[in-house]
């Protein structure tokens, strides 16, 4: 998400910069235009840029879903991938998370996480693509 978010912040910044310069050009010579970029000023302004960029991305779920799709993380919701992973797990071929964090996840928990409804037919919602 870093890339689209940074692009959104940059776009918001350029908009602010252009508006500031545009306002100063009314009644001032071009040489007199000065944009204040002191740390304090920029820090306060950055909050507004972050908020508007966040709202922009949050208002369009398709961007976030697309990022999940590009990274391949959305495949975890794919029934076929889940079945393949379950088979690999049963065959002991599934790569385990290092440091043993999940080592203490009980069989019951693992059952809930991975195998709930595996043998049933896919639901309608499962067939709806993420993006």
């Amino acid at each position, binding site marked *: 998400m870093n890339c689209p978010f940074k692009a959104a912040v940059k776009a918001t910044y350029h908009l602010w910069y252009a508006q500031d310069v545009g306002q100063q050009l009314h009644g001032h010579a071009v040489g007199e235009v000065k944009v204040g970029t002191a740390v304090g000023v*920029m820090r306060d302004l950055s909050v507004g840029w972050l908020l508007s960029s966040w709202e922009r991305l949050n208002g369009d779920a398709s961007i976030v879903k697309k990022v999940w799709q590009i990274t391949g993380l959305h495949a975890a919701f794919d029934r076929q991938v889940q079945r393949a992973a379950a088979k690999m797990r049963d065959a002991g071929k599934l790569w385990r998370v290092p440091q043993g964090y999940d080592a203490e996840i009980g069989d019951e928990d693992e059952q809930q996480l991975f195998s709930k409804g595996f043998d049933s037919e896919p639901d309608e919602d499962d067939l709806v693509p993420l993006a």
Partner: protein
Amino acid sequence: MKFLLPFLRMHVINWDQTGMQLVPASNARTYHTKNSLDVNVANGDDKRGYTVVLASAASGKMLPLQVIYGGAEGSLRALPNVLCRATTIAKGFVFAQTPTHWSSQGNMCKYIIGVIDPYVKNVIKASNGQLLVDQKAVLLIDCWSVHKNEEFLSWMKEEYPHLIILFVPGEPLVSFSLRT
């Protein structure tokens, strides 16, 4: 199960820290003389940077941000004006301050307490009983040393046993696919 899946997608969360510049000017284009070897960028040094923790759920929703500014710990002088922060705090944003503006273990804990946990609880509440009260959520995070820190993981296991951490490769994530 038909209506459960959208809620479960809300419970799969990925986050990452990213460095930002107070002046996010583009480094790709300049009005300097053509073919110049070096072009200094004003206000581009790291002292004018800050860190943002960005999280999103598989449902397409973005979680509130954690914003970390550079300044001495214990004081709030490096944070933006209270009035500027007020609107964002109402949206759930969390602000922090560290000497280097980089995220730290303490800030990760604050992020879990201030953003992740309330979000997970809100989703459970919004599901109107479709999700269990202790429904597990999956956190997909990169292998940053703080994320893999024994102390942090022990704290997570103790305080938030319903939040399951799974590590994903950082840089090659773009080409990473569960299908392969």
